[in-house]
């Protein structure tokens, strides 16, 4: 658990970077610090590993006041990932990852083996291990940065704009993989970002800071989307809040599906509308348009629509229904077997029913 208690940072020239910040990051969760530039989010992060010292207030890690611990020792317990990865340019990828364990006196062979494991964990195979940082793309460097931060298996992780120096496609991919990784390793993480979508996507909790280092709102992504405290937060969170909030909601398990009789491949289609086509085990293959095609064959099969389980987010379900053939979404069960369809209006009704 990382806790900020009335933490402030005032510089010598009188500017307040962080103003009376109170936050709590439960063990194993990720807090995203987000806000416009100059809101003190990076300062707040760097006060945790004492790259910057707080002027007043206390920051505790699992109950221990950071200002009472020695800086170097403190930092070695906290993984640190920064924007441009900050890899050591003169060391190979594997040596970068093994650098800190080696510094702490780890055995060369063991640290290397562990480094290779970590590289694999972040999605880099052995081919990359003996390259130098300049030979990697920005996204690959960032992966190495994450692996390096995990090298000593620290309980805490600080990440300063870790994914903002890469292009949007790679960023989304890194974020997805990072979510999966966090699911496995369950570190207590504080991440700084200026990208609210990243904060909402990755954060278990999000702290929105405003210029001058004042906490504007601290809550879960859903709370931020559905109940922003003021216009600053609402504007910062941005448009389509209601729709985006659906991304954090699920329909009740009892939501009634519309029955739908699928056909098998090569069977005749008697219905005039869109019909789901399934394989022998009942798993959906796609849709066939009964208005145009007489039978379901590979040639008449439309495969662009997704089939989702009811456990998917309300946003995915609604989006799937809106984009689906005939305004419906095919639903599958946990085994991937087709069970029925949902219309957009039934998704909306289910959401409203849950809210009421």
């Amino acid at each position, binding site marked *: 658990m990382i806790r900020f208690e009335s933490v402030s940072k005032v510089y010598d020239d009188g500017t307040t970077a962080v103003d009376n910040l109170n936050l709590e990051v439960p063990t194993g969760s990720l807090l995203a610090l987000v806000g416009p530039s100059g809101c003190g989010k990076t300062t707040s992060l760097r006060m945790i590993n004492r790259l910057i010292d707080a002027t007043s207030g206390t920051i505790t890690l699992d109950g221990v006041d950071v200002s009472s611990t020695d800086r170097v020792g403190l930092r070695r317990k906290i993984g640190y990932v920064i924007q441009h*990865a900050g890899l050591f340019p003169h060391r190979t990828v594997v040596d970068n990852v093994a650098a*800190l364990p080696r510094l702490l006196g780890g055995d060369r062979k063991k640290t290397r083996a562990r480094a290779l494991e970590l590289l694999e964990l972040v999605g880099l195979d052995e081919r990359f291990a003996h390259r130098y940082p300049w030979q990697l793309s920005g996204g690959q460097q960032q992966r190495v940065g994450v692996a390096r931060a995990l090298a000593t298996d620290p309980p805490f992780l600080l990440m300063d704009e870790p994914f903002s120096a890469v292009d949007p496609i790679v960023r989304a991919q890194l974020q997805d993989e990072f979510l999966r990784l966090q699911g496995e390793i369950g570190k207590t993480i504080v991440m700084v970002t200026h990208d609210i979508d990243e904060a909402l996507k990755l954060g278990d909790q999000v702290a929105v800071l405003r210029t001058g280092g004042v906490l504007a709102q601290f809550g879960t992504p859903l709370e931020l989307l559905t109940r922003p405290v003021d216009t600053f937060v609402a504007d910062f969170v941005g448009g389509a809040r209601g729709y985006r909030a659906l991304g954090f909601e699920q329909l009740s398990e009892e939501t009634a599906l519309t029955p739908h009789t699928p056909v098998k491949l090569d069977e005749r289609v008697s219905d005039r509308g869109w019909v789901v086509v399934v394989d022998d085990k009942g798993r959906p293959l796609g849709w066939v348009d009964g208005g145009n095609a007489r039978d379901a064959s590979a040639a008449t099969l439309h495969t662009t629509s997704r089939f989702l389980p009811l456990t998917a987010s309300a946003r995915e379900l609604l989006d799937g229904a809106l984009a689906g053939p005939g305004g419906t979404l095919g639903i599958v069960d946990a085994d991937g077997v087709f069970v029925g369809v949902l219309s957009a209006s039934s998704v909306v009704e289910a959401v409203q029913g849950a809210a009421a």
Partner: protein
Amino acid sequence: MTLFEWLTDPANWTGSRGIPVQVGFHLLYTVISLAIASAIAIPLGIFIGFTGKGEAIVAGSANALRSLPTLGLLILLFLVLAPVIAGQLVFVVPTIIVLVLLAIPPILTGTYTGIQSADEAAVDAARGMGYTRTQILWRVQMPCALPLLISGLRGSTLQVVSTATVAAYLGLQGLGRYIIDGRAQADFAQMAGGALLVALLALALELLFSVLGKVLVSPGLRRTTRRRRTAPTDTATAALTTLTAAR
């Protein structure tokens, strides 16, 4: 006598005044001066790069050092030191001092700019990971500073090798002998020969430094790959390659 004849005359290659001996002396002055200059400039450069203190003063005085007229300084030092130092050293010490002063600025500048130019993100990462300041210096900043440090050394070496000829002014040995003596005897082949040998020596040292750079500097900083070149793909080059290989 032509330059070629002078160079190929066996008499010039033997004896206590022969070319190998003079090259040896020349190298000796060069190496001593560089060693002393490095012993001063590298620690000082590390201090400046590490603390960021004194950069303005040192950079200014380093530039002033560069503009000192070597020959004038040599004579001055000789006159100043002559009463205090006895024996052969009275010639050696001023010469070495002059060469050391000449060698310091490039090494000094190379060292501290090298340290300061170490990738900021890498240094920040190291700090955040829990490297102590000295660990950052030795494990991150110094390795990253090596290319600039070596190029500073290389610059110093070239300057010292060419300027070490002034040793002959005070009657010392070295390749400067040929230039000074040749001038005195109006033996222009000898003068040119001496100059040529200095140039060749400089070139050889230059090569040595490029090898040193390859050995000492991480390929990660040199940005070169050890991968083999890919085979030529266009037919013309391929044909040429086979032809050359067949010969």
